[in-house]
């Protein structure tokens, strides 16, 4: 392995694609074609290494791979692939990864064309001044329409697609063309003085159980070597470097990393907090004059409460969240108590997918049974005394008499859909208080932009969108601004007892609909009791929706078989076990599942 690679033989690039358009498969092919791993070592998709990532076909944490490629011109190039998260929730991580690159491959499915998510990420790449090479994947599919998709790329994104690389990652077609395009069409790193003081960007960091904190770096100037003493300019922390290396994708140690290169270091760092992403790494004794601009920290936009189903798991949940936060600084949590659900945490997320992923990781990797409350957004409450509150939890809503006005976050949403579903989608957006800003067609596909209150989107918008478009519509959004809204706190009362975990802030115009849906849902979910149970949705003291669960009329075993008291007792024990999994509200027992299902919403 050459210790020094000349700058013009380095390419740092990432792949931008919509879920399912073949990013991971292409990455695998590139690794395979350049001998990074032999076939035996190739797991199906190497880069998405978390279980959840592989199952959902998404990337959450950035990963990098160094590829050695001997091009047709005879030169040996170092190609650093920096894999990026595809989803908008992780736009922050995307832009961080992109800032370490000079170019990107835009992979588009030749049958499905450009999706909303593709757009968002291409714009991020353009914002970072990246050179973009369009790649049409799945050209071997019968449904592929490469000419139409090229046209679409030109019309919708405004990129020249005439030289798009035509490939099938799955069938291994055109892989070499991709490698050649990387070498010849993407620029080499621009600057870099190997003799200057070290200046490196801290791209990412994560905790490894064996190595401690692993830091992913992009070198701008100077050299990074083993045993060097480095300083994090932002935090002021000093470390002796233990290891310097690259991912092939296996971790391979190298003597040094030079300008334009991407690699990792370990330095017996115990606290992830000491490695702030975006920080500048320099030599301790010979510091670079100027810090890199760094990144602004990601702000959580969606909040929900997470509670252990079994109260005894509270400490385990706290420990698990702490561990997840080690590798995901954008996830935040603080303790919360609920009359309904006991002790738990109020958690902040970058978006709905982020929320779902954290929840799933907690239950899967830490084996925790959780209840999540309805997701809510951050409201800005202007009080009559002039102060402004940020409300993360509807339960903390101040007395309405003290509220001057409430602002809620709005998003700009982009939806792409086959035009046959457009009518339903427009209706959905209108129902959700959306304001249409753009509607254009590309062939039989429509691209529509809406301004929407985030509050209406966190509620089940995505599920509804998927169902009314049979899964064909794609959706992406970014936070636009805050606007005043006529928002009220809706409470749910079960047998006249308010259930705090089910209370939510809603727009007045939506209150009745949501209240009705919630009451209907709870009627299905709460088992019959020995007495009848009214379920009400109320704003202040006014009931806006009501359902009644009738009393249980018959529940008795007709026959006990020949003295087999055991069978009956086992049933009783199961019943008692089930009761333990219920939460008591006054005299009513509500199963945990009812909370989860009620909050999932909607028919």
């Amino acid at each position: 392995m050459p210790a020094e690679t000349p700058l013009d033989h380095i390419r740092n690039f990432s792949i931008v694609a919509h879920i399912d358009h073949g990013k991971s498969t292409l990455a695998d092919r590139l690794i395979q074609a350049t001998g990074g791993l032999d076939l035996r070592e190739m797991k199906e998709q190497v880069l998405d290494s978390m279980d959840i990532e592989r199952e959902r076909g998404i990337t959450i944490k950035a990963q990098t791979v160094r590829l050695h490629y001997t091009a047709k011109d005879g030169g040996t190039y170092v190609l650093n692939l920096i894999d990026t998260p595809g989803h908008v929730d992780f736009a922050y991580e995307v832009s961080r990864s992109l800032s370490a690159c000079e170019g990107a491959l835009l992979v588009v499915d030749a049958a499905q064309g450009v999706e909303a998510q593709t757009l968002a990420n291409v714009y991020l790449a353009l914002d970072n001044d990246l050179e973009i090479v369009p790649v049409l994947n799945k050209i071997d599919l019968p449904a592929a329409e490469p000419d139409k998709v090229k046209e679409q790329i030109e019309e919708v994104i405004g990129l020249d697609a005439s030289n798009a690389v035509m490939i099938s990652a799955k069938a291994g077609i055109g892989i070499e063309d991709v490698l050649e395009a990387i070498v010849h069409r993407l620029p080499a790193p621009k600057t870099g003085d190997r003799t200057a003081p070290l200046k490196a960007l801290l791209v990412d960091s994560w905790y490894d159980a064996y190595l401690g904190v692993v830091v992913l770096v992009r070198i701008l100037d100077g050299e990074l070597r083993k045993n060097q003493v480095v300083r994090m300019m932002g935090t002021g922390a000093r470390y002796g470097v233990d290891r310097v290396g690259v991912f092939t994708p296996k971790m391979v140690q190298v003597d040094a990393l030079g300008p334009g290169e991407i690699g990792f270091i370990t330095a017996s760092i115990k606290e992830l907090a000491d490695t702030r992403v975006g920080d500048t790494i320099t030599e301790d004794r010979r510091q670079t004059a100027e810090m890199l601009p760094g990144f602004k920290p990601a702000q959580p936009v969606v909040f929900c409460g997470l509670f252990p189903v079994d109260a005894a798991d509270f400490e385990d949940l706290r420990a698990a969240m702490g561990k997840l936060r080690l590798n995901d600084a954008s996830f935040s949590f603080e303790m919360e108590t609920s009359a309904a659900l006991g002790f738990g945490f109020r958690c902040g997320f970058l978006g709905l997918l982020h929320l779902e992923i954290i929840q799933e990781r907690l239950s899967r990797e830490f084996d925790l049974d959780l209840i999540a409350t309805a997701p809510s957004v951050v409201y800005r409450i202007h009080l009559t005394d002039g102060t402004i509150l940020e409300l993360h939890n509807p339960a903390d809503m101040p007395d309405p008499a003290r509220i001057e006005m409430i602002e809620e976050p709005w998003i700009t949403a982009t939806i792409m859909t086959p035009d046959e579903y457009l009518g339903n989608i427009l209706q959905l957006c209108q129902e959700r208080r959306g304001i249409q800003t753009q509607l254009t067609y590309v062939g039989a596909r429509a691209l529509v932009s809406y301004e929407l209150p985030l509050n209406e989107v966190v509620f089940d918008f995505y599920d509804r969108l998927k169902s009314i478009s049979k899964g064909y519509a794609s959706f992406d959004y970014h936070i636009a601004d805050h606007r005043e809204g006529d928002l009220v706190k809706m409470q749910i009362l079960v047998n006249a007892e308010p259930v705090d975990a089910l209370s939510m802030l809603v727009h007045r115009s939506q209150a009745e609909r949501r209240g009705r849906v919630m009451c209907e849902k709870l009627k299905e979910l709460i088992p019959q009791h020995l007495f009848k149970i009214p379920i009400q949705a109320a704003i202040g003291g006014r009931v806006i929706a009501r359902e009644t669960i009738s009393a249980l009329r018959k529940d008795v075993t007709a026959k006990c078989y020949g003295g087999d008291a055991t069978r009956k007792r086992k049933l009783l024990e199961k019943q008692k076990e089930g009761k333990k999994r219920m939460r008591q509200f006054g005299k009513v027992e509500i199963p945990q599942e009812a909370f989860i299902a009620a909050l999932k919403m909607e028919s």
Partner: protein
Amino acid sequence: MNALSAEVHRFLPTTPADPGFGVYVHWPFCAAKCPYCDFNSHVRHQAIDQERFARAFAREIAVMAGRSRGLTVTSIFLGGGTPSLMEPATVGAILDAIAANWTVAPGAEVTMEANPSSVEAERFLGYRAAGVNRLSLGVQALNDEDLRGLGRLHDVAQALKAIELARSTFPRLSFDLIYARPGQSVASWEAELARAIDLAADHLSLYQLTIEHGTPFYALHKAGKLKVPDGELSADLYEATQSVTRTAGLPAYEISNHAVPGAESRHNLTYWRYGLYAGVGPGAHGRLMGRLGRHAVATEPNPERWLQMVEDWETGTTIDDALSHQEEADELLLMGLRLTEGVDLKRWRQVSGRDIDPTVEADLVAQGMVERLSPDRIRATPAGMLVLDAVVADLA
């Protein structure tokens, strides 16, 4: 007839305080499996070697008797399966073995279940001669269409003949009906029940059809091809059953059992009063005292495997678990609350080491589900009986 009715009065009565000791014998074979039945019953197409089974029963009887020395048998129950597929000689051999291994109280109740087919009715005299003094007939319905629907092999005419013959043969007779059948209305059930009461002697078992997991009815029901009365209608049917039988002088003394006062099934009372009982034969259950307290005892359900086990090791016992205080208390409560006489709370307290939760009881009393018959006796009200499983889950 006089001699027989005199014998009725010699039946040993049991009381709540002294629930007696019963022996249950399970004959696991049936001519055909009914589509609603999830009991331990098996159909065999080759002849059953009854003598061999009788010898095995005798061996296991000796084992169970060894575990319950000093107890006097107050009732014997031959259940199944279809015990009336046994030759009278087989029944005689089993009853003889019980008498040889235990002390059987004079006037002990000896019940046998029988199907009302003509073949089986021919054996009634033989059973009586062997010592059976109470017959429990599986009539199930007095309507040919429903009998076919339930997969029964007899028709109404055969049932009527069997009832008549049984009444003249046995001192005591009970029969079973299944209600809440597909398509059944309250009015048609009331009419059928009135006819049944006319035919009945002094005891009736009236069971609501239950769709049990793993039965053909379960699969049909799940596939939407079998419509049974819903919760509301089945509650109405239950209430109609209570009122018709009460008026006729056969009030319920248990959820599904009705009798002229004094004619209750002693054997089943032993279960519900949570007395001790031994179970003999494949898949039979017992409650016997072990060194540390009450044990749940059960045997291998598969007839041939059970037979082999008994021949090799004297018994087919596969479960012999000491019950915890909580388990014993649960069983005492869930069995006892099925009875209109209710449960003795002093005994429950002794077993469980605690009292019934007063707030839970107060709520249930306020909802009209339970009541105190005396300071130490709690029972389910008629309304509580309908939702007894939920009531017990609250109280236990």
